[in-house]
């Protein structure tokens, strides 16, 4: 297992290097730079800024000095926000996104898996129809629409819940529902179809034939296998929720990482683009690795060596 993890870590390093390289190339290939400005800033000032941040150096020099910085855990200064570092952006934005994401993940798990199981067990009955109709709506309606409707109903019309921020427990409710809506629907559908498939397997019939209760059949035999596809998508889903959704964060004015992820691109804030991309990629890779390790724990048929 240690060997497996080490091997995967090695591959992740290579993948990370490629991500950094390609992001760097694409970023510089896009026209426009961080110091494009409306107010007619003199050329000499732009030159002074470029010199200050080393943008006057050849690309390969910039690239390697950036790599060196990363190895020291330094993502560099923001080119766009005077006096701020990318490390500060991440350390201030990521915990906020993670707080919202963490609550959403718990909400998604608590809601989606029982929903999927229940729908599978009531296959074809009205409960199944209702849940799957809801889930279909949840998958198809984008989060910003859900968010706008929620704000309109609960903040504007009823005035029950705060419109923006993440300052009280009430303020979590709307963004969590908006952010989790899609994941719940998607996972519930996946859980249902996966469980239905497993329930048709021979070994389930065997278990039933042994005289086990339906409860024991589902929990002890069916669920473990049915969860595998769910866990596969759970890794990236959790990574996505924890690192923030730009849309939901923007609508609810939540000061998370999503803002930097999107705005740094339109502002050509090179170091921020790189820093946030690397952070997100590393997080995603870690989650995928965790999922792989988790597979082996729930399904003995999967071996680390394979």
């Amino acid at each position, binding site marked *: 297992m240690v060997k497996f993890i080490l091997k995967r870590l090695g591959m992740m390093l290579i993948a990370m290097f490629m991500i950094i390289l390609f992001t760097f190339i694409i970023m510089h290939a896009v026209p426009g730079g961080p110091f494009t*400005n*409306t*107010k007619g800033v003199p050329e*000499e000032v732009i030159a002074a800024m470029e010199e200050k941040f080393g943008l006057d150096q050849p690309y390969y020099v910039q690239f390697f000095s950036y790599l060196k910085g990363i190895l020291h855990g330094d993502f560099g200064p923001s080119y766009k926000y005077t006096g701020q570092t990318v490390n500060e952006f991440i350390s201030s934005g990521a915990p906020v996104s993670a707080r919202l994401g963490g609550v959403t993940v718990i909400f998604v798990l608590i809601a989606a898996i029982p929903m999927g199981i229940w729908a599978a067990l009531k296959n074809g009955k009205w409960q199944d129809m209702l849940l799957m109709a809801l889930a279909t709506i949840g998958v198809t309606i984008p989060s910003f629409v859900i968010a706008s409707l929620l704000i309109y109903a609960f903040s504007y019309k009823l005035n029950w819940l705060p419109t923006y921020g993440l300052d009280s427990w009430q303020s979590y409710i709307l963004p969590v529902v908006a952010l989790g809506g899609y994941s719940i629907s998607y996972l519930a559908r996946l859980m249902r179809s996966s469980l239905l498939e497993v329930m048709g397997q021979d070994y389930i019939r065997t278990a039933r034939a042994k005289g086990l209760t339906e409860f024991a059949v589902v929990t002890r035999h069916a669920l473990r296998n049915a969860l595998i596809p769910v866990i596969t998508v759970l890794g990236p889903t959790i990574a996505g929720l924890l690192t923030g959704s730009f849309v939901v964060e923007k609508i609810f*004015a939540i000061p998370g990482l999503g803002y930097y992820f999107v705005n740094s691109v339109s502002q050509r804030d090179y170091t921020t683009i790189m820093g946030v991309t690397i952070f997100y990629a590393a997080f995603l890779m870690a989650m995928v690795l965790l999922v792989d390790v988790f597979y082996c724990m729930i399904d003995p048929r999967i071996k680390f060596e394979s």
Partner: protein
Amino acid sequence: MKKKALSALLAGALAVSLLSACSSNEPQNISDVSASTADDTSTAATAEAAPAGAQEMTFVLNNIPDGLDPGVTNNSFAQYVLINCFEGLVTYDESGSLVGGCAESWDISDDGLVYTFHLRDGLKWSDGTPFTANDFVYSIQRVLTPSTAAQYVSMVTGYIKNAQEFYDGTATADDLGVKAIDDQTLEITLIQPTSYFIDVLSMWVYDPVQQATVEANGDAWTSSPETYVCNGPFKVTGMSLNENVILEKNENYWDAENVTLDKLTFRYILDNSTALTAYESGEVDGIISIPSSDYARLKAEKAGVQVYPSYGTVYYNINCSVAPYDNPLVRKALCLAIDRQSLIDNVVQVDAEPAYSFLAPGYSVDGKDITEGRSNYGLSATADVEAAQAALAEAGYPNGEGFPTLQLSYYQDDTVKKIVEAMAEMLKNNLNINVEVSSNDWAIFYEDVQQGNYEVAAMGWSADYLNPMSFLPLFKTGDSSNNSFYSNPEYDALVEQVMSESDTAKAAELTMQAADLASKDYCCLPLYYKSNSFLMHDNISGYYMTASSNLYFKHVVVS
């Protein structure tokens, strides 16, 4: 400046109103900056209501500034913090008059070259340390240091003696025209007797910054409340990157006894409809940006719409360096083909006046707006199809025949997109030409505009300081802000004369001659003169906004 020129117009830079460079410190009333809009619900007068309840409020901003260092940034989104936390030598009062800030009074030499400022007694930084004339000397020298990368540096190098030389390293601090005579006396020497220097001086690039904190913390001095030392009515006690900046009353401000508000939270909410919901449900006290689709409703409901005149123009650049747009007749045809009133009423849906020139009204000399009575250059609020087609025919394109497809470029922004689509229709229908619309994100769009890689492009201007000189360089040959590539030696000469004219009335006359010249040439496609509007609940009073969009909170009272 942040991003979009249009939204930039909502914000703005430093303003001024003042004129005559006579040597006195008397507040000089300029113009009641002629309001382009009728119902100025001006709450400007200092509220007399006795403070009741907590003197705290939250105001929503919809854009995050690129920095909070007054010496470095020219970003209009930074103004809310900078205007309320710093005070330069001069500032503005409720009536829009330029008055002393740190300077109690000033004298101007007879030749108009030397300004001597007498600072107030007992000035202090927000950390309690003493504040002297040397702090201004340090701050101006810092702006003139290339590694500071001051974006407004030309506002200093263009006026102060040896400032450009100091920036280039060919002059020493002794040569520079900024000197502390003693702790309370500052002397500034100009290159030429510029009549509007005092207006320029109100810009935040001239604000003092504290040497001790800048040297101890470098660029990072602006990123934490502990190191953000300032000298204005408020100081920063909390900042959270893309969430908020919290200001509290600065007890060390010279006029602290007249500051009632204890706590002012600037909350960033980038989504305008969320901000509006927060405002309407009473969670916040005011918001800076009103979604245009809700504007009419909010006004009808008397929901707290505040309208202030703004010294700015929304216009479209026409690239005067490429055919066929190098022909003034073609530009005239474009200007005539636009129905401005329809754009204002049906598309933008704001309070605005149709514009026929790039130079906005709002600057007065001797109580008279200098733009009063000027020509409308043959333009009118609605489109004049016949005249437009006649101009196009005269230019050699009868009924639009043979006219190449017009490229109309804009940057990604919902409001701008609506304007562009409406304009494209008007140009197509009224001139019988083909119009192709293209959009890009701001960085790419603006780079194209700067390089002249466009034909007609969305733009606009809001004055950095309340003087028409803020507009004139836009069409001066070789100026870095001249993205229209309009070039007229006669215009350039007039602008040069304005810069060296010490008499305000004469400067105004020359200004109008220059503006007439360029407007007659249809140097751009003017749409409308802007006003600023924001929302504030009735229980807040005492705030005021200058014509350059600076919003002052120092006299706010919450009732």
